[in-house]
Structure formats: structure tokens, C-alpha cells
């Protein structure tokens, strides 16, 4: 079994890159791999709690929480979050906040890295 580090910089609603990332993380965890998940830039939107579940909009809060109980480590870029007005008290419980070096440290011993840099 390997370790996959996913970095995603895309917004919660729109490109569906976060939907993709979360589904990939889920499939990898199902197969027994370890998954670290880093969100930076607009990707930090994923870490906000209290996303209202409308069927017209991507809603990932519930899935991410479930994956965290199955071992997913999810971390948001703290500065990217704060610049957008996302504070610790708005963050999903268990979703970590660190500076960018956390991502690189996760990559250090990752077997595979999927970095999704754009919108």
C-alpha cells in the first residue's frame, strides 16, 4: 500500500476539481492507501464548516468528514484561508490549518503526488 498526496487549489463550486480530488481520495482509501489532502488558494473553501447542502451546488463537507474518520488527513493553507476571511472558528472540525511547508513535508515521503494547481 502506498501514500498519495493530493494538493488542490481550485474552488469548492465550479471546476469540480475538488469533487474529483475527494472522490479520488475516497477510492484510494478504500483500497488501503494512505491519503494526505492539501488545499491552498481557492481550494481552502473546502475547509469551511456550515456549507449548506443544496442540490444545485457541490457539497463536500459531509463526505470530507466521513473520509477523515477513515484516515484522511486534510489540511488547509492557513494564510490562504485567512486572506479570504476563513478563520479557525469557521473550519470543519478535524480539518487542519498549516503553512505551505506542511504540503511539502507530506510530499517528502509520498509515493505519488497529484498536484491540481489551477481553477
Amino acid at each position, binding site marked *: 500500500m502506498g501514500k498519495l498526496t493530493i*494538493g488542490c*487549489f481550485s474552488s469548492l463550486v465550479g471546476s469540480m476539481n475538488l469533487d474529483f480530488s475527494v472522490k479520488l481520495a475516497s477510492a484510494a482509501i478504500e483500497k488501503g492507501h494512505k491519503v494526505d489532502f492539501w488545499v*491552498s*488558494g*481557492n481550494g481552502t473553501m473546502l475547509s469551511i464548516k456550515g456549507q449548506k447542502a443544496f442540490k444545485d451546488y457541490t457539497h463536500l463537507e459531509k463526505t470530507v468528514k466521513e473520509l477523515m474518520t477513515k484516515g484522511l488527513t486534510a489540511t488547509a493553507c492557513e494564510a*490562504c484561508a485567512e486572506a479570504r476571511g476563513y478563520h479557525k472558528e469557521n473550519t470543519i472540525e478535524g480539518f487542519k490549518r498549516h*503553512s*505551505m*511547508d*506542511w*504540503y*511539502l*513535508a507530506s*510530499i*517528502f*515521503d*509520498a509515493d505519488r*503526488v497529484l*498536484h491540481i*494547481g*489551477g*481553477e
Partner: protein
Amino acid sequence: MATTKLGFIVQRPPYKSENPKLALTHAIASQSVEIYLNDGDMVTADLAFIGDGVLNCIKNQKAMENYGLTSTESHIKSTLMLDLSVFVCREDLDKFGLSEDDIVMDAEEFGAEVKVKVVPFSEINKMMEEVNHLLFF
């Protein structure tokens, strides 16, 4: 004692998306990653600007004056101050008719000893071969 090498490739112009700037800030984070690692372990970051990404390197960006925002130019200078390798694709500069005079080449005013390396794409490709992981922006 292990080293993981990363290649950061910037292929898009500045200011349209945050990602060229995030490439630079994430690459810079390689300098502080040791706090998470065992003694002697490290992560290195090489940066390359290719395609429209070379537009990030044009000098005299006045983002602070016009939008109150750090320019991508000044982020490139920060990267040089931290001794990271910064490559710029020569063929892409040529395509735009840009010379080394038109782009950020050093950060001497801040005491940086490292300079930008203008290289053919083949060298950037070699870097991509040599690193452990690639991060495209």
C-alpha cells in the same frame, strides 16, 4: 537522510489566476520544511517558467502601486534570495521577443547571489526527469 526533489513548473501568465504566485510561495516553503522532517532529511524545489509562464518574469511590474498587491516579480526575487534554482525557457522568451534585459534576472539589491538561468527547454525537461515529483501551475 533522504532528499525529495520537486519540480515546480509555471505555464500560465501572472494575475489571471493565483497559481503562478502560489507556485513561488509553495517552492519557497521548501526552506522551512525541516521542522516536519527528521534531521538530515530535506525537500528541494526547482522552479521553471515555460510557455506563457515566462510572462511572469517581465520586469517593472507595478501591482502594488495599482492594486496594492505584491507583484509576481518581487516573489521571484524572494525565491532567488533563498537560493532556489529558477529556470526560464529560452525558446519561449525568444518567441515573445524578450531578452534577458526584459526579465528579472537577479535580486542583487537584496544580496541574492543566485541568478535566474535562461536555458533551452531540453534542460527543463532534464530537470523534470531528475526530480521525484512534478507540480504544474
